[in-house]
């Protein structure tokens, strides 16, 4: 189990991503969850996570308005999946590396 400085923020992201991938919430709701978690993360150690959430939220916004509806879902799923992967690989990297992020 990975220890996060902001476990609630991470849990919110993971849940929202899960719901979105199951198509139980829309992109707007997911964006709100990402934004809320991003705003809660202030620690230097998890700056990288804040950036991930920030970029993912904006990428979803960009896709909403620049990708045709028939390709939108796949594009968004890709972003969400990538976010989840990056979150955990980033955390692992932090755990094994003493270098600054």
């Amino acid at each position, binding site marked *: 189990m990975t220890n996060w400085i902001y476990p609630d923020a991470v849990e919110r992201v993971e849940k929202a991503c899960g719901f979105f991938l199951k198509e139980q919430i829309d992109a707007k709701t997911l*964006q709100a969850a990402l934004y809320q978690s991003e705003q809660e993360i202030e620690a230097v150690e998890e700056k990288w996570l804040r950036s991930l959430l920030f970029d993912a939220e904006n990428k979803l916004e*960009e896709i909403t308005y620049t990708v045709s509806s028939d390709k939108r879902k796949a594009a968004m799923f890709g972003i969400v999946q990538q976010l989840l992967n990056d979150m955990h690989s980033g955390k692992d990297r932090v755990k094994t590396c003493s270098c600054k992020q």
Partner: protein
Amino acid sequence: MGNYVAFSGDGDPYGATADAFAAADRMQNGDAIDRNGNGVQRGSREYADVADRYNTVQRFDEADRFQNADAIDKNGNAVALGSEAYTRLMQRYQTSQGAAGMSARGGGVANNNAPDDVGAENFGLRPGEDWGDTASSSMPKVSVRWKQYALPTLPSAAEISNWASTTWSDITTGLSNAYNRVQAWQDQPAVTYTAEQQAMLDSMGDGSTIPTDTVTQQLLGDTRDQLDNTGAGRYLNTAWEGKNWNDTFAGAYNAAIDIGQMVSKGGLNNSLFGMVSPFEVNIDYSPWQADYNSKEYGTLVQMAAPLLIPGVGGEAVGARALGGAERVVANSGERLLWGSWKDYSKVSIEGREYAQIGDRLYTQHSVNRMQPSGLGAPAGELTPGRNISPNFVEDVIRTGQQTHTVVDDVSRTVHWSGNVGVVTENGGNVVVTILRRSNQ
């Protein structure tokens, strides 16, 4: 035994007993005297114990002075409130704070005795004094005015250190840079550039190819590390690492907005506002608009950059983020209102309503997306705005890199400049949404 003058209980030194002589001998030959009056030799364990007790007593005495003093002078002595010494101390404190912090009010906030002009001398200004315009045919028209603000609520030192300390150096550095920069402009004869400035001009071009070691980096110096990752500092990377002036602007701009938000969050608007906004800065870009990409424009932006670095820029943008007092921020002539959806006149096209901002139409979503986050989530949105002003959007559309796409048969353009993106349609006439990205 030597010829000692000892003492006895009856006050007759010559009637002293042999014991008294012995005691005097110990005292004069001991490195220290223990509580029983015995001599203790330096270096012994007993000597260390005695010294420790002595130092402890000294510390108690010192602590006692601190706890009972209104102030402590440089010798560690207590100074009483209202005394002449206290006044002198306070003046020195405020002067050093003003000089170190270049903050007209920031230093003096721990007490309520600061006169209104404390720190102003550090800028060579007096309250109400105006540096005036420095317009010429080739220099930007810049006016800087010392502003006075009331401090209805003074924040405690703890409050300041809790939520503003990470930005303090930023604020003060901005002010310091602004002051030095403006001072340099005034000292410089119009039109004539020094060889160094000319070389800088030549190397800068329009600002699109800034070397790694940007002027902004030089200006900010080591404050970046202090600010990085916290509060206003989180956007400072953008300014720091900006490879063109728009990036630099974007970072400074957003950092400035962050400061505005902190002001709001801290609930100390008036106090901090007064502290961070001793200047009113007005830069008129209009003479340069004709040749937007000129070398001179690049130079102008470079000059303006320190003014927009949090501090001076921070207060200006922060004030707008708060819907506060009238401010002027560097802009390209026309100042576009930065408000919420209800603030704009509306235009209906094919059943859809748009806000008219300048020469462009904005969807309600884009207006909401631009709105200062400190105002909370606009109606119909789940999250607050992203702190991008219409002026900034205008700049991104005009100067950003464009990519074109077709979305469900509608042609759209994405303009990116630095970390801000704008999605438009109809040849840039309609703004659809606002995007951001980090530097990661």
